């Protein structure tokens, strides 16, 4: 059970500058918990009050997880999770 996770530049200080890491889990929520266990602190940069942060976009394969059930989005062996900071402002 291995999920490939692409890490954006801004979060690479947590992953010792690795662009891609692996994690396990059957939902996005479980993948984020596993990431946080491996790279303490990264979970807090993705979640706020138990929900995905507004400033972060996460995709399973090519699909925005907001259309897949957000934290409950299912993931399976071989899937690719991509984390990107939103490009936005006022």
């Amino acid at each position, binding site marked *: 059970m291995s999920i490939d996770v692409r890490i954006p530049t801004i979060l690479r200080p947590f992953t010792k500058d690795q662009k891609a890491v692996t994690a396990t889990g059957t939902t996005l929520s479980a993948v984020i918990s596993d990431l946080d266990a491996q790279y303490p602190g990264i979970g807090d940069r993705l979640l706020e009050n138990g929900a995905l942060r507004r400033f972060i976009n996460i995709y399973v394969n090519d699909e*925005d997880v907001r259309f897949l059930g957000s934290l409950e989005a299912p993931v399976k062996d071989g899937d690719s999770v991509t984390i*990107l900071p939103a*490009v*936005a*402002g006022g």
Partner: protein
Amino acid sequence: MSLTISRAHVDAIVEQSRAEYPDECCGVILGPIGKGSPERIKPMINAAHSPTFYEFDPKDLLALYREVDDNDEEIVVIYHSHTETEAFPSRTDIAYAGEPGAHYVLVSSRKEIAPAIEFRSFRIIDGVVTEEEVSITD
């Protein structure tokens, strides 16, 4: 810290800000990875279609990062326009700024200074805004 940018890119950004007025316009300039030089401009759609907010559509955002990766490029400049306020990062701009390696370029076409345009560049790292010099090359 400074940004060196071509006159053609400056003109293209100003032109786009006028074309999309009163909404904010946005886009990026890409360059070969590690070089730090802005070479390929890519206007983006402001999915918010708003005079006070801009946002790349999440699908466009993913496609952009894939393209950048495939071409061994990086995002050198992230630009957007302010239509009523000065060309300085807003609180929202600072909260969202997620590319510590990028130059954040702002243009303002606010009416107090028309027909002049303000064109300024900043680094935004961990919530700290630092203005940098802009050199325009012909």
